[in-house]
């Protein structure tokens, strides 16, 4: 029995099916962070301007702070927690470590998710493609250059392994 004012949703989260009730005004970010305890997606502005909360929905990057949780019904959601693990890093995560791409790291999960969406669609991106793909993700520490280097390196590695 669904509680009054709650919406029942079913979706795939990091590869596993999940079914729960959400409030009609609950954002995907709040659902992830505060109810599901997946705190890798960050709240930097809560109005879709910084990109720190970026997750993939059916492979496309979205600002989870602007996405109502009820809208992910039937969708496939991937967060930074579903991307890799210490023994099984995604090539992007590996390249981010090696290239000193991480400083404070608050923007990192969101940027990695935006970069993943790019590489899935375009395995050999140009520098301009990368700039455009991460232009919605603000970073105040790095000057973006190490980030672009890391994404280029990850793209080279993934295409070699194909």
């Amino acid at each position, binding site marked *: 029995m669904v509680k009054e004012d709650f919406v029942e949703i079913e979706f795939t989260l990091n590869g596993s099916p999940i079914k729960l009730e959400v409030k009609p005004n609950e954002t995907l970010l709040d659902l992830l962070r505060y109810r599901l305890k997946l705190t890798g997606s960050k709240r930097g502005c809560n109005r879709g301007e910084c990109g720190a909360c970026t997750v993939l929905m059916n492979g496309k990057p979205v600002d989870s702070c602007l996405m109502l949780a009820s809208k992910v019904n039937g969708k496939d959601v991937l967060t930074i927690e579903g991307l890799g693990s210490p023994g099984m890093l995604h090539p992007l995560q590996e390249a981010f470590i090696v290239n000193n791409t991480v400083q*404070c*790291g*608050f923007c990192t999960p969101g940027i990695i998710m935006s970069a993943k969406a790019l590489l899935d669609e375009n395995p050999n991106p140009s520098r301009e493609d990368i700039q455009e793909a991460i232009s919605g993700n603000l970073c105040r520490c790095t*000057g973006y250059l190490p980030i672009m280097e890391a994404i280029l390196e990850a793209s080279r590695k993934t295409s070699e392994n194909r």
Partner: protein
Amino acid sequence: MTEAGYRLVGKSIPKTDSMDKVLGAARYTDDLEFPEMLYAKLLRTKYPHAKILRLDATRAERLPGVKAVITAKDVPFNTFGYNFKDQVVFAQDKVRYMGDPIVAVAAENEEIAEEALEFIDVEYEVLPAVFDPREALKPDAPKVHEGGNLCFHRKIRFGNVEEGFRLSDKIVEDSFSTQKMEHCHLEPHTGVAVFNDQEGLTIWTTCAMLFNVHGELARILKIPSSKIRLIHTTCGGGFGGKNEVSLEPYIALLAMKTRRPVKMVWTREEEFKGSTTRHSYFLEYKTGVKKDGTLVSREVKMISDNGAYTQLGESQITKASIFAPGPYKIPHVRVDGYLVYTNNTVGGAMRGFGVPQVTAAVETHMDHIAEILGVNPLELRLKNALESGECIATGQMLHNVQLKETLLKAGEVAGWDKPHKRETGAPHIKRGRGIACMFYPIGFTEKPNPSAAVVKVNPDGSAVVLVGSADMGQGSNTVLSQIAAEELGIPFDSIAIVSGDTKITPHCSGTVASRVTYATGNAIRRAAAKAKRMLFEIAAEELSVSTEALKLEDGSVYVKNMPEKCISIGTLASTSYQLRGKPVIATAHFNPPNTPLDPETGQGNPFPTYIYATQIAEVEVNMKTGLARVLKIIAAHDVGKAINPQLVRGQITGGILMGLGQALMEEIILKEGCTLNPNFRDYLIPTAMDAPEVDAIIVESDEPTGPFGAKGVGEASNIATAPAIINAIHDAVGIRIVELPATPEKILLALREVVKRG
């Protein structure tokens, strides 16, 4: 082995926190949760200057889910401030700027806390206010504080400027202004406080001057500081924005009142309106110069908008005043820096601490002088550049000066002596290049600022290092571990570092003033050397030689020239602890040597050492849209010895983009004290689309007072960027923007003026 026989110093070891951060597993303050945790919100005033006639929060208190409401009368000691105790935790009788907190609410969730703010009734009597610091200095201006609006006047007197002007062939005068900026660390101010009788108060926060805030809290709460524990959590960026007291008093008071954990997260809007900002400046420069380009005399008058409270403002205008003349030998200098109260957002520390503002002005002024004299801007700088053995205007004689090296290196890489490409293929887009120099100090201005360290060597030969310095994300814990491991002669992975915990770690004056590698690094090296001496004494006894006959290499102590006679650090540590009953533990501290400035003349030795840099910018200006696009920055930086070159380059590339924001786009727009652009849609910071190519060149030097020759880098990186860009715009299209930032609107207006003048 790297150069000079170092195993770890000079090696680009990846930052130790990167793994957790790329996995999304790093725990930032907002990721911490406690059972029964409450959420707190602040009610801030809606007027920039007003008397509070009546304050009634009873309706908010009655709201279901609200657990505590506190105001000024709940604060044991309501005032605080680093330089002067002029700021209030809660405004009581009057509010002085639109971010002044009046009430704090703790509730079961964020929505209830937010809603409760609407049920607080405040009656104000609006007072006349003042927003322009130049107006605020007039005798009839509304008073922000009882003592008047001139908060502080810093004077630097060196030689005789009037005499210098008489000896000059040309006098060049310029006026500039620089804007208020916001730090825009991606993580907003966040804190969690927990209180119980046994442990006292524990606060997880990301402030950079942990021990200063610790002392302030003890005064505010009137409890011994030993009952307050500040733990530095993984930090999502600071840049000076998290230096001073911010949300800690509110969550502390609410946790003590409710005896439940309390979390507060500032919204992005609060970051713009209620947190500190980069001080804005009005500057006037007058320089006397010989025909051959020799600088003779320089006079600088500058007025800085302090906002309603001082925080670190006095230290900031002092630093700005010392650096206002630029990194040049000038026999006659006079600087007057006025720090003035207004009813604007509060000024505070931000990367560069006053020096980006004065450097933007002086380096644009230098190009104007070069233009008037018809000399090459690089040659003018080379001719006057400070060198070792020369004095700055405080009378301090400098050592280990690398300015000329950076000028020559940047010039060489940029091909400065060759004509550069001006045309772009599109007739309305012009290309230009500009140069700027800077120097910057390590450590606090004139005040003591020690760091301490504890080094414990475990019986297995690994070591634990305790320091109060917080890693803000820049990688200080990685660099400090390299220093400890190098000195102890053990592998990098054998070091565990505990940092930023006021109950456990020794004191540190803060991760500020580009001081951690230098000051904390020196403290660690000293403590590690003491621990090493203990190990050598054991080894000398075991091997029946004197300690002088021993050397440390690859984790073992050897008898010189007898490599077969050796004992590993682990064996020595366990022998010391388990057989001799002597735990291997050592403490040390380092206080960067400086002396206070004379209040009337500004004479003294304010800093232990300085870093130098030259940056060259290549810029394209679209004359139809007014948009300036930075193509490339060549940045040659003296950092002393680079302990971790990759992290040094990370600081340089990151700082440059912040400097680009200062040059072209960032500005807090205030109207009658109200911030009109408190979000990332209206306050633009550079995105990946704005990122230029950067050639970060490390010009190493061996600093005799630094750990393994290191100085620092953190704040030096953004300082020369803005004037290099502004000078490049002038080179491209012949206009000199003297009010930062150089927005397309300002560039178009200036171009139109040029057309009008013909």
